[in-house]
């Protein structure tokens, strides 16, 4: 079997991405199948990320596979000074696939070169988190029926949020229009905007969330962190202007759905949770189906 890893969302073609979404829709209908009984999946979390790890482990467990691994590097030989190369070499002897999260950027690409088994990147520092991108795409597909020709708003920290960068990059293959809402200090980096332009797509920038509410099909909210601001006063000034509440959803499109990579702090008021347009908890569940699709596809159990 040819070893196929997923390190960066661009490792998969548009066709391959769509195939994963199709498979995910099948797993949504039938999430418990004993098709991974002969497989061992390692989840190596060199930094803790409970949500992502549990989502992967649920995906494997529901398919009858076995999970080995660790949730925190402090209990492993990494603490004794073992190199990443050695850790990966050893664990690729024990398992059929490695899911890895690591605080260093580029660690997943390096692991994919060293390992004899496929690697799925579950986040390498501030660089890539491709399964988040796939589950975001799946959530858009499930709520809109398509990924083509949509108006998508991204709200909050567009500068440091890697989920935003990867999703914008991926959706640039689907003829979407981007509405970018952020404080001046946290605008989308120019390299990502250049990518939109290179695909002959349009983007609009705003500082006021109200300006996009009636225009868009998807509202992708993100958290603004205080430590991102060089001037704390600047944070205090804007911190309440990117909070979504139920009243703001009044004159929005019927098909509008609100996404958020979670965890949220206060950027979506809890009164939104019961609105049918709130989709962020379903979005988190979608992560399990997408990861089932990805793991079975990479292992060659589904094609």
């Amino acid at each position: 079997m040819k070893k196929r890893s997923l390190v960066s969302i661009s490792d998969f073609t548009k066709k391959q991405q769509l195939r994963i979404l199709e498979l995910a829709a099948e797993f949504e209908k039938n999430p418990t199948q004993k098709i991974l009984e002969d497989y061992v999946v390692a989840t190596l979390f060199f930094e803790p990320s409970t949500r992502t790890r549990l989502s992967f482990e649920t995906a494997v467990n529901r398919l009858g596979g076995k999970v080995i691994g660790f949730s925190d590097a402090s209990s492993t030989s990494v603490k004794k000074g073992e190199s990443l190369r050695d850790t990966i070499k050893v664990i690729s002897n024990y398992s059929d696939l490695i899911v890895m999260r690591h605080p260093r950027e580029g660690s997943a690409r390096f692991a994919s070169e060293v390992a004899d088994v496929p690697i799925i990147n579950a986040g390498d520092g501030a660089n890539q988190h491709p399964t988040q991108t796939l589950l975001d795409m799946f959530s858009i597909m499930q709520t809109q029926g398509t990924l083509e020709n949509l108006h998508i708003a991204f709200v909050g920290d567009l500068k440091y949020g890697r989920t935003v960068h990867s999703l914008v990059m991926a959706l640039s293959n689907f003829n979407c229009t981007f509405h970018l809402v952020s404080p001046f200090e946290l605008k989308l980096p120019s390299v990502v905007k250049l990518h939109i332009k290179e695909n002959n797509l349009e983007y609009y920038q705003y500082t006021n969330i109200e300006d996009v509410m009636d225009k868009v099909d998807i509202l992708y909210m993100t958290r603004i962190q205080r430590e991102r601001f060089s001037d704390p006063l600047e944070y205090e000034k804007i911190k309440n202007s990117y909070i979504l509440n139920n009243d703001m959803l009044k004159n929005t499109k019927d098909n509008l759905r609100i996404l958020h990579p979670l965890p949220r702090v206060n950027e979506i008021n809890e009164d939104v949770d019961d609105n049918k347009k709130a989709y962020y908890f379903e979005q988190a569940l979608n992560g399990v189906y997408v990861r089932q699709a990805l793991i079975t596809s990479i292992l060659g159990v589904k094609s």
Partner: protein
Amino acid sequence: MITELKVSAIENGTVIDHIPSASVFKVIKILNLDSTGNMVLFGTNLESKKYGTKGIIKVSNKFFKSDEVNKIALVAPAATLIEIRNFKVASKTVVHVPDEITAIVKCFNPNCITNDENIPTQFKVLSKDELKLQCLYCEKVTDKKTMVIK
């Protein structure tokens, strides 16, 4: 006018001319001339009509392969490579920035795995005129300002 050779002639080997003075030692490092057994002569801060000052390196009995020598284009983009046989110029070529750079440049991102583990760096050259090198691992772009030779 009699021209005096500031750096002695070699009988056979390679002359690397038009190196920016500040880059002479970097070129020596990139080409591993600090650990070669060949005779190496070099001069720096020499007068140059074109560049003000320049450096020159002469390596006896050594002829470089183009991928080997193209690496120096990162620090000496205008360098000329002159092959000498029997004290005569046998060929003259210029260097070109290659499409990929392996092992000689440090990734500027302190959080890149290549700065933590013993891994030869690899870069894809995104732009040659205004030097832009994208790390194959962390995907960040190192440019002329942030570039450090390992």
